[in-house]
């Protein structure tokens, strides 16, 4: 619940120091983002390299600092400048003599913040239980910045992007709703036949066999059922049956593999949003279109 100020400041300082190395070139920070999911921080800033400097110095050197790397450089016309930075003895060196004729350059640095840092600045929570209707199941989503000043201390328009809220959507019960009684009857008939087969009564086997023949005509086999279960719990299939409200969007949908039962029980849906000083909180709903999903299961099994 509480911040450890030392830890947070360390992160802030390391980011600021990177930009400080560009001081002779009057760095102007355009955007800083921290990605909640990947812990990646991205700093975009513009440097001013007038012709006079370019003539005076041969190279621009900065220390390769704490895992930050230059991922992009563009000129005034927004053309990408390739491969002018090289790594020499712990320093990143820019070969200025081959720079295009532009005085302003956009530089993008990328690095990582400690994994616990994002959790300390943002609070996320989904509803643990759904609200349901005949048509859908809904989960509320809540995201809040814990302390806006921490963001501003890094930079005044810092944005935390892809703040993710993970919702585990229960789907196991959809199978019993989707599969008609015939499926269960066929499974029971199969079970009886297997039991009769183990016994010695010929009459019993004939009776079970005839019941089995009748029942399986109208239903898929056990193997087909299992294939169906895996098909409809695949992330790409399930994705069509879940939506989120603005400002959230869906990032990832995957079958949750951490469950103790024999078959998949839940689908993990990751909703993402962004937070910044102007939007310090976000709320909304994740909606699972249960009725359409059950209908889709029925269509896939052909019943």
């Amino acid at each position: 619940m509480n911040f450890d100020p030392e830890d947070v400041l360390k992160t802030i300082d390391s980011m600021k120091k990177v930009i400080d190395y560009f001081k002779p070139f009057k760095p102007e920070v355009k955007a800083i983002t921290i990605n909640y999911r990947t812990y990646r921080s991205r700093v975009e800033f513009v440097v001013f390299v007038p012709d006079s400097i370019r003539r005076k110095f041969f190279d621009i050197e900065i220390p390769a600092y704490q895992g930050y790397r230059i991922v992009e450089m563009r000129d005034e016309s927004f053309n990408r400048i390739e491969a002018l930075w090289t790594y020499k003895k712990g320093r990143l060196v820019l070969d200025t003599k081959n720079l295009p004729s532009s005085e302003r350059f956009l530089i993008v640095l990328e690095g990582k913040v400690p994994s616990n840092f994002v959790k300390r600045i943002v609070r996320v929570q989904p509803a643990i239980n759904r609200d349901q209707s005949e048509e859908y199941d809904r989960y509320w989503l809540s995201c809040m910045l814990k302390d806006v000043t921490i963001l501003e201390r890094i930079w005044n328009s810092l944005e935390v992007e892809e703040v993710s809220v993970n919702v585990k959507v229960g789907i196991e019960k959809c199978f019993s709703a989707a599969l008609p009684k015939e499926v269960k009857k066929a499974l029971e008939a199969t079970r009886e036949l297997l039991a009769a087969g183990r016994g010695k009564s010929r009459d019993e086997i004939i009776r079970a066999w005839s019941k089995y023949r009748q029942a399986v005509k109208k239903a898929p086999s056990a193997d087909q059922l299992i294939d169906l279960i895996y098909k409809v719990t695949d992330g790409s299939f399930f994705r069509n049956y879940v939506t989120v409200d603005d400002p959230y969007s869906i990032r990832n949908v995957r079958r949750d593999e951490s469950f103790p039962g024999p078959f998949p029980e839940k689908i993990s849906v990751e909703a993402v949003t962004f937070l910044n000083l102007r939007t310090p909180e976000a709320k909304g709903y994740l909606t699972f279109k249960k009725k359409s999903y059950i209908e889709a299961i029925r269509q896939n099994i052909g019943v």
Partner: protein
Amino acid sequence: MARKDYEIIDDTGISIYVAPWALPKEDIPIHIKWPPNTPVSLVYVKVPRDFEVKEVLNTERYEIKEVNGNKVIKVFDVKKTSFSDAPLYFGLVVSLNKIPNEIMYIGRIVAEFLDSKGKMLRQLTVYARVFRPIIEVLKYPETVEIHDGKVTKIPLHLKYAGFGDVTLEIEVTIGGKIISQGEAIVLEIIRRLSEKSDHEKKYEDFRSRIRIQPAYVRNLAKKVREYLVGHAPLPEFLRKENIEEIRKELLELEKQGKLMEFLYAQIHNLLIDLLIDLLERYPIDTVELTNPYINILTKIETPINEIILVLKYKDAIGNEYKRSVGIKARDLRGVKRGKHPIELIINVEKWNSDPLRNVESLIVGDKQ
């Protein structure tokens, strides 16, 4: 716009939002926000005493006091930035710290926004709505008879009402001894092993192509191991002479690193049962049975006169609820009591379901 009693945005842009529904003890986030030009300098938020204040976010200074049966959170100042157009905001996280008796518990939350002279600018009221599930026993036999070597059936008619998905387990107390349902699938594996006559046959064809969650098989293996290798007490009906032999064989398989593979094959044989189990596990949309077949087999030497059924159900956050019924038992077993174990089959024959739906759009405010 539809009226909501968990969120208000007034004409000056002051807003308060409380998460629209929660289970008992679940964290309930509250977002409170106002535009930068609003002269708010002090905010009081009153929540009922039964709520615990768990977090206060983005404030410079606050205090919590109990006043007239309410908890009052006094927020002196919120954390601000130099952005003149950024909204001012703070967050609270509360939770109901008890399990209510009723399906719905409504917590009235009043936020008062004051200016620097102490004048109230606005008072907004929202409601935290906490819901719980309730399972009732509508019908059960008042008396059952227990005969030598006969199964005693206990049919039940249950009702689910309220809110929240639950897992239900039925526990039985006979003569002061608590007997749970046991691990049906695990015991079924052991039973099948013990009933196969040809030991050579049962270990062939290990490899199975079945797509079963590895975690499930691991867990199953662990439980089978607990019974057979770890010597957990086995139910009476499994105490066959050859259990000791199976025990040895499984230990041998484990040594060879083949136990999991072997169990996969056993599960393959149980596939039909697992699928039926999947279809029967949810008798109604909101209830998951930990075991659809409730067979109780126990050996009790002394005469019994009562069977107590305890319905234990848990909601998604892990709150546990209980409902018990006592059934009179006429123990008609022969003089050599204890010779026959008591075998009960508890079957939920009928379910009534009355879940609360669309709680988001429920208006509770007028009831206060």
